[in-house]
């Protein structure tokens, strides 16, 4: 906990150390850049080094800065050496090429004039120049190839032909210092006469960023210069090589040391940041920190403190002491790798309040189950299960764990969730009897077409004139009993199968929804009992349950009753449950709608009255009880208004005070349940909102569960469309061509199945299952206003 809120961030005790760590990190970043620039990969360090002590930190800093300095110097040297080398080389080339234009008729054996290279033929035949009486001067240099034509034009215009310019490409490309890429430079040689023209030419070449080199007049001096250049270049190359070698050595040193240093400095910085949150006691001799600690781990903490004192060789031991506080503690729920995924989806809605009942253990099963109701298909479920199984079996492989793709990481974190979702989908797929939208006949179908055909004498001629006929369950032998596991396979061949399926799925959704919500209300019992609020058991739980069961439990009863009692024999007169339910609320009756059982009307009236009676109990019960309890004489409870005095640690303290900081100083965390100030109005308002939310919520949430029906219908229809319009086309052709066509057809089917049915429908069903859990289930009992315990830990350094 932050004990120094008054002191600004810059004045805290350890800010110097933190700053030092940050400087070191900057140095490290520079080193890393250099290493990366030279193309080396830093090796990640194998074990995590311990955080260094303060004097070691100084040494680390010195070392790293020294290395950085060395690196900088060496790089700088190398860059300048390279620049010089380049200049020398360019000069050499200029001289060499220039020879070709100014030399006297070429001696035998030398290469012929490279007319192919030059852009221009010299206007003036070089052999003529000795006849002219004016002295010819030369300007020689190197120019960027893109600027050549502009240069020429400008020269010609400026000097009006009083010069001879020749351009030749350099035989080898050289590095351009500005961009670092290799360019073939163009060497130019300008012969002119007259001083002023010379000045103009030089100015123009300056403008064009050419490198101009002095061009010696006579042949001999040229040869001298060239040999001098050669030796210089050689020397320089040797020096450059040695520089590069030294640079490589320095880089090696850096590569070896850098990762360890980084981790060490990071740990140091984290420790100092935490130390900044502690306060000094009055004598400035020791640090005090206030922490949250789970009760079970208290002995471990004491042990660790003892070890720490021993290892750092201090004379005084560290110790830990419990202090009372009025803040609400953070929530810690211990999870393993399997349960962590499910806990995180509960926490995403809201972390459980301290010591509240945790819905996650139930969500481990109910969440994949509700997903599976919307996704039910054996084939798709199997694919999903196998995918998750692969992820689970290879969960320790580093290539899976350290992928950088965020979407993949999300799937990987939820691998156990997907595993269970796939497994339940296989089960519900069997019950829905859907495998890639086809039904499987595990048991023989309960409907006998033969019996119907014989009874109604369906001859072939009769069938030819009637494109569709219905089996009548009233006829003996047609319907032989319920299919033992799931939906009868004949329904997938029927044209009216949606009629049956809709009725089934709608009732199923309602029943499961009411059971789920009822379970949520029952979980509230745990909360009431744990927090010693038994009055809430009678005043809240009881009316809630009565309301839910009297209305919606009765609906479930009606559904089951109708399934059992009414058959095809009286199908004409079968009552509609929905109309009965509506009439129940409106206290009317419909003569066309026969009652389901004798005495239905009075029973329903009693239930509605009971439900309506439970509403005011829910609304007023708890507030009245609480206010009654407060009004009864309290045994002199003095309000614990804290006085802002400092009190030492060992004597009794007021709740909420901390050692050596006044109450105003300490940041106020949670609320102080000061009972004096609780308004009757506030409790009443809170309870009223809760009542309205609950009662209206019962109705709307029951309807909300119908999304189970909607999504499972959508999934079934999509997969049927995919089958009949894509895959079946591959089977329609009966020739050998059809066999070949089947391959791309299957490819299309597979891609669409994975993309649309698995990914899209899977995400959709996941989202809706999540919503059902978060809203419809959890608002029956969950508060979720807690905050998580964030213990100090060295996070593993992931190498970028």
């Amino acid at each position, binding site marked *: 906990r932050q004990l120094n809120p008054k002191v600004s961030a810059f004045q805290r005790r350890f800010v110097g150390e933190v700053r030092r760590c940050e400087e070191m990190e900057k140095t490290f970043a520079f080193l890393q850049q250099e290493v990366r620039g030279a193309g080396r990969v830093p090796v990640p360090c194998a074990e995590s080094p311990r955080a260094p002590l303060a004097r070691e930190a100084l040494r680390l800093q010195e070392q790293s800065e020294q290395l950085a300095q060395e690196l900088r110097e060496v790089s700088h040297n190398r860059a300048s050496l390279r620049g010089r080398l380049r200049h020398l080389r360019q000069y050499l080339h200029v001289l060499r090429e220039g020879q070709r234009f100014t030399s006297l008729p070429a001696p035998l054996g030398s290469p012929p004039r490279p007319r192919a290279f030059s852009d221009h033929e010299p206007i003036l035949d070089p052999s003529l120049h000795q006849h002219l009486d004016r002295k010819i001067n030369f300007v020689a240099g190197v120019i960027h190839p893109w600027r050549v034509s502009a240069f020429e034009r400008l020269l010609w215009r400026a000097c009006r032909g009083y010069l001879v310019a020749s351009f030749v490409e350099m035989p080898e490309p050289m590095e351009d210092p500005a961009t670092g890429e290799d360019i073939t430079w163009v060497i130019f040689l300008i012969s002119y006469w007259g001083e002023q023209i010379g000045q103009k030419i030089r100015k123009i070449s300056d403008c064009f960023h050419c490198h101009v080199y002095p061009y010696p007049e006579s042949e001999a001096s040229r040869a001298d210069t060239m040999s001098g250049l050669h030796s210089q270049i050689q020397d320089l190359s040797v020096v450059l090589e040695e520089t590069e070698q030294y640079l490589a050595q320095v880089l090696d040193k850096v590569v070896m040391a850098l990762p360890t240093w980084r981790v060490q400095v990071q740990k140091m910085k984290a420790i100092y940041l935490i130390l900044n949150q502690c306060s000094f006691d009055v004598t400035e001799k020791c640090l005090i920190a206030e922490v949250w600690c789970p009760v079970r781990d208290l002995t471990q903490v004491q042990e660790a403190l003892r070890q720490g004192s021993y290892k750092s060789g201090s004379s005084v031991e560290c110790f830990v002491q419990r202090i009372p506080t009025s803040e609400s503690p953070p929530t810690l729920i211990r999870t393993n790798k399997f349960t962590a995924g499910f806990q995180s989806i509960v926490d995403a809605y809201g972390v459980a309040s301290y010591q509240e009942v945790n819905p996650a*253990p*139930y969500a*481990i*099963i*109910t969440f994949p*189950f509700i997903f599976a*109701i919307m996704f039910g298909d054996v084939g798709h479920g199997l694919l999903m299960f196998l995918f998750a199984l692969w992820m689970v079996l290879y969960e320790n492989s580093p290539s899976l764990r350290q992928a950088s793709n965020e979407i993949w990481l999300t799937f990987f974190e939820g691998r156990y969730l997907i595993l269970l979702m796939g497994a339940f989908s296989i089960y519900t797929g069997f*019950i829905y009897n859907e495998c890639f939208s086809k039904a499987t006949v595990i048991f*023989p*179908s*309960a*409907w*006998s*077409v*033969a*019996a119907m*055909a014989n009874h109604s004498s*369906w001859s*072939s001629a009769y*069938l*030819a004139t009637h*494109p*569709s*006929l*219905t*089996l*009548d*369950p009233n006829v003996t*032998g047609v*319907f*032989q*009993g*319920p*299919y*033992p*596991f*799931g939906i*009868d396979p*004949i*329904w997938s*061949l*029927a*044209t*009216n*199968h949606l009629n*049956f399926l809709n*009725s*089934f799925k709608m*009732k*199923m959704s309602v029943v*499961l929804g009411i*059971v789920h919500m009822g379970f949520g209300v029952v979980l509230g019992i745990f909360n009431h009992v744990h927090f010693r609020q038994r009055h809430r058991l009678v005043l809240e739980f009881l009316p809630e349950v009565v309301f839910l069961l009297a209305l919606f439990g009765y609906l479930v009863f009606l559904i*089951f009753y109708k*399934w*059992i009692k*009414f*058959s*095809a024999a009286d*199908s004409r007169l*079968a009552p509609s449950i929905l109309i009965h339910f509506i009439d129940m609320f409106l206290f009317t009756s419909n003569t066309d709608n026969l009652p389901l059982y004798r005495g239905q009307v009075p029973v329903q009236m009693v239930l509605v009255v009971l439900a309506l009676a439970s509403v005011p109990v829910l609304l007023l019960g708890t507030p009245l009880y609480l206010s009654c309890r407060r009004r009864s004489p309290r045994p002199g409870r003095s309000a614990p208004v804290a006085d802002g005095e400092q009190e030492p640690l060992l004597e009794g303290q007021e709740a909420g005070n901390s050692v050596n900081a006044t109450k105003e100083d300490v940041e106020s965390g949670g609320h102080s349940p000061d009972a004096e100030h609780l308004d009757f109005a506030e409790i009443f308002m809170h309870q009223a909102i809760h009542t309205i939310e609950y009662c209206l919520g019962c109705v709307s949430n029951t309807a909300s569960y119908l999304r189970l029906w909607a999504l499972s219908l959508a999934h079934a229809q999509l997969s049927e469309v995919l089958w009949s319009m894509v895959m079946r086309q591959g089977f329609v052709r009966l020739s050998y061509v059809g066999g070949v066509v089947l391959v791309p057809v299957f490819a299309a089917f597979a891609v669409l199945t994975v993309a649309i049915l698995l990914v899209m429908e899977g995400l959709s069903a996941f989202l809706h299952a999540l919503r059902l859990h978060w809203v419809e289930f959890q608002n029956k009992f969950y508060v979720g206003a807690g905050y998580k315990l964030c213990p100090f830990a060295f996070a593993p350094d992931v190498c970028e």
Partner: protein
Amino acid sequence: AMAYGGLTVPIIVMSVFWGIVGGVLPWLVPKGPNRGVINTMLVTCAVCCYLFWLIAILAQLNPLFGPQLSNETIWYLRYDWP
């Protein structure tokens, strides 16, 4: 046509099966830190799956109408299915 046992055989089989999963297996789970979670999972799973199966079979117990089949399907099923 196979004589169905109606509702009795399936309901006995399934009740026993999920009853074992939800009522007997929790006693056999070895003691460890995860025992509570595993037991919760077993019971919840048994209840959910049993309920789901029960709804499916009860919905088909007394059908109010029969399947409507195309004549091609009738031609085929008349002789292929018992």
